[in-house]
C-alpha cells in the first residue's frame, strides 16, 4: 500500500490547477479494474476526482510523456514522480529533452509497485477487485468466494524488489516523506548469469530472446529512447524492425537497444515492465551499468543533471577492451 493517498494528491493537483500555477496534470487514470491504470493528462478538478488514482499499480514512469506534452500544452504541467521516475526526469533534463520551466514536478513516495502477473500466478484468473491493505493486497476473484490475501512483498515488480533509491533527485515540491538511496542487490542477477559458462549464457539468452515479437514496446516505453527517428524505424537501415527474422535479428535488436541507452539508462525498469513476452530486458541494461561502474567508476544516470555519461567520456588510462572482457568477467 502506498503511504500517500490518491485524495491528497488529487487535492494538491486541483488547487495548483485552480490557482493557475499549472495548466495540466500528468498522472495515472483509473481503468476498468483496479490494476489497469493508464497515464493521462487532467485539465480540470472534476477530471481528477473522477479519474486520477495513485495506487500499487501506478508503475508507469510519466517522465517520457513530458517530451510530447510540454510541446503540446501551453503553460506548466504538473507531473507526479516516484523516486525512480525522478532519475529519468533528471536524465532527460540533462539531455535538454524538455523545458524545465514548463514543468512542475511533485515528488511522491513509493513503497514499491505490484506486478499483476505475479498476483495472477498466485490467485489464478478472474481477478475482479484488489483492495490495498497495510502490507498486503486483498484480491477478489470470480472463482473464490473469499478474497485472497497476498503480501505486497511477494508480488513486488522485479524492479521494486531491487529498488535503488527511495530518494527523489529532482522536484519542485515533495508530498510525503523523503527516502534514502538504497544499497540494492540489483546486480545479483547479472552476476548469476556471468557466472554461467558461455554455452549456458548463450542458451539462456537464446531462450529469452526467442520469445521477442518485435512489438517495440521496450523501446517506445523507455524514457532514454527519445530519438526523433529511431534507427529501427529507418526502412533503409537494413534492419527488419518488426519481423522476428530469426535468432540474429532479435540479438541485434536487443543488443543495440540496450547499447543505445547505455550510460543514459537510469535502470527504471520500464522495458521489462512493458514487455508482453516477459523478457528480462533490464538485465541487458544492468550489465552495461555494472560494467561501466566497474571499469570507469560508479555512475548513476540521472542522479545529477549535467553529468557526463561514461560512454561520452574517456580517460587516458582506460583499460583495453581485451582487459575489460578478460578482467572481471571471465568465469567461463
Amino acid at each position, binding site marked *: 500500500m502506498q503511504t500517500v493517498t490518491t485524495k491528497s494528491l488529487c487535492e494538491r493537483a486541483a488547487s495548483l490547477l485552480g490557482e493557475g500555477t499549472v495548466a495540466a496534470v500528468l498522472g495515472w487514470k483509473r481503468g476498468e*479494474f483496479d490494476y489497469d491504470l493508464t497515464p493521462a493528462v487532467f485539465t480540470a478538478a472534476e477530471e481528477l476526482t473522477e479519474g486520477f488514482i495513485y495506487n500499487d499499480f501506478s508503475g508507469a514512469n510519466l517522465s517520457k510523456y513530458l517530451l510530447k506534452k510540454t510541446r503540446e500544452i501551453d503553460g506548466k504541467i504538473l507531473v507526479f514522480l516516484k523516486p525512480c521516475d525522478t532519475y529519468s526526469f533528471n536524465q532527460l533534463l540533462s539531455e535538454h529533452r524538455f523545458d524545465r520551466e514548463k514543468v512542475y514536478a511533485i515528488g511522491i513516495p513509493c513503497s514499491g509497485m505490484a506486478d499483476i502477473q505475479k498476483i495472477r500466478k498466485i490467485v489464478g484468473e478472474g481477478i475482479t477487485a484488489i483492495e490495498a491493505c497495510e502490507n498486503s493486497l486483498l484480491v477478489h476473484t470470480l472463482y473464490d468466494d473469499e478474497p485472497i490475501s497476498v503480501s505486497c512483498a511477494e508480488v513486488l515488480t522485479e524492479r521494486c524488489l531491487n529498488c535503488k533509491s527511495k530518494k527523489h533527485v529532482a522536484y519542485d515540491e515533495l508530498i510525503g516523506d523523503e527516502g534514502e538511496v538504497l544499497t540494492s542487490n540489483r546486480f545479483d542477477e547479472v552476476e548469476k548469469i556471468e557466472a554461467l559458462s558461455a554455452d549456458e549464457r548463450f542458451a539462456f539468452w537464446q531462450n529469452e530472446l526467442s520469445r521477442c515479437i518485435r512489438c517495440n*514496446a521496450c523501446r517506445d516505453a523507455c524514457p532514454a529512447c527519445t530519438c526523433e527517428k529511431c534507427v529501427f*524505424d529507418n526502412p533503409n537501415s537494413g534492419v527488419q524492425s*518488426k519481423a522476428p527474422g530469426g535468432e540474429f535479428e532479435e540479438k541485434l535488436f536487443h543488443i543495440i537497444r540496450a547499447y543505445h541507452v547505455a550510460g543514459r539508462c537510469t535502470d527504471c525498469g520500464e522495458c521489462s515492465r*512493458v514487455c508482453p513476452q516477459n523478457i528480462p530486458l533490464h538485465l541487458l541494461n544492468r550489465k552495461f551499468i555494472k560494467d561501466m561502474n566497474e571499469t570507469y567508476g560508479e555512475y548513476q544516470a540521472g542522479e545529477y543533471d549535467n553529468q557526463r555519461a561514461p560512454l561520452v567520456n574517456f580517460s587516458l588510462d582506460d583499460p583495453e577492451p581485451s582487459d575489460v572482457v578478460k578482467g572481471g568477467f571471465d568465469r567461463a
Partner: protein
Amino acid sequence: MLKCTLSNIDKLFEIVSASMPLYLPTEDKNGAVFKKWQPGTVWSNASNTVKGPKDLFFPQSEDLMAFKTEGKKIEVIDTRTETEDFAVFGVRACDVKSLEILDRVFLTEPRDSYYASRREHGVIISLACNRPTENCFCGTFGIDAAEPMGDVSAWLTDDALYLHANTERGQAFTKLIADLTEACDDSAVSAQKEKNRKVMKRLPLADLEANAFGGSKTEQFFHSPQWEKLSESCLGCGTCTFVCPTCQCYDIRDFKTNNGVVRYRCWDSCMYSEFTKMAHGNNRNSQKERFRQRFMHKLVYFPENNDGIFSCVGCGRCLAKCPISMNIVKVMKALEVDTDD
C-alpha cells in the same frame, strides 16, 4: 458426442501426433503458448494463450518467394510447398471466430494461397471455456464460449473430455482417436455448458455491448473528441496488434541473402508511424490518427465490408498486454458515452 477420460488425454495427443503434427497450449515462462506436441509435452488448460493460433495460419514472418539476379536478368522462384495436415487442439471459441474473420480477408478473391493452404490442412479442435478471465468479453460479439465451433468442438469436465465433430475434417479426426473414445449422450456436456454460462454472466465485462458500433457509423465516430484523450498516452508500439487474433495487416519486404533475394512478409501494425509513410508524406501523421484507425477498423470499417461482423472477438489479450492499459473496451465505453449525448 464422444467421451475420452482425462486419464487418456496424453494417449490421445500421442495418437494424433503419430499421424500429423499437433499443436496445443503448453505453459511457457510467459504463459500458455501453442507448441507442437512431443512426448513429454504437458497440455495447459489455461484460459487463454498469450497469442492466438493466428501464427499457425498466418505466421508473423514468412517467406513468399525468392529471386536470383544476374546482371540485368531476374529469376522468380516460387518457394511455396503444400502444407502438410496438422491439428490444433484447445482453441477457444473467440479464437475460432478470429479465424473466420481472417478467412474473410485472406480467402476472398484473390485468395491468399499461403494462408489458404494452411487453412485447408489444419483441423481445429476447439475447447469450451470453464474458467474465463476477467478480461474476457466474447459475449459482446455474440460468441458463446460454452459452445465453441471449429472442426471438432470439445468440452472438459472434471474427469473427461467430450468431443463432437462438426465437419468432415472433424470426423476424420475423431475417427483417428476412436479407440480412446466412446459414444455418450449430451447430459454431462449440457451440465458443463450450463455451469460455464453461469460464470459468463458474472464476468465484469458481461454487460459490454457493441450495438452502438457497426458499418456506416464512420461519420458518427470518426470526429469524436474522445480520440484525443484515448490516444494521448499511446506509445505507438505494436503490442496490441501483435497479440490480437484478428489483426492482419502485413508488410512485404525483400531480404538480400548472400546468394539472392528473399521476399517475405511480416505482420505490421497500423500503430507504427512508418505504416502509411510514403516518399512524399504520411496520410496518418499523428498517433491519434493511427490509434483511431485501428479501432475504427475493428468497430466500423470491417463490419461495413463484412455483413456487420466486428473485427474483434473479445479475447481480452490487448487488455492484458497493453503497456499503458489502453484497450478496445475502454475505447468502446468512451465512444458510447459520446453517442449518448
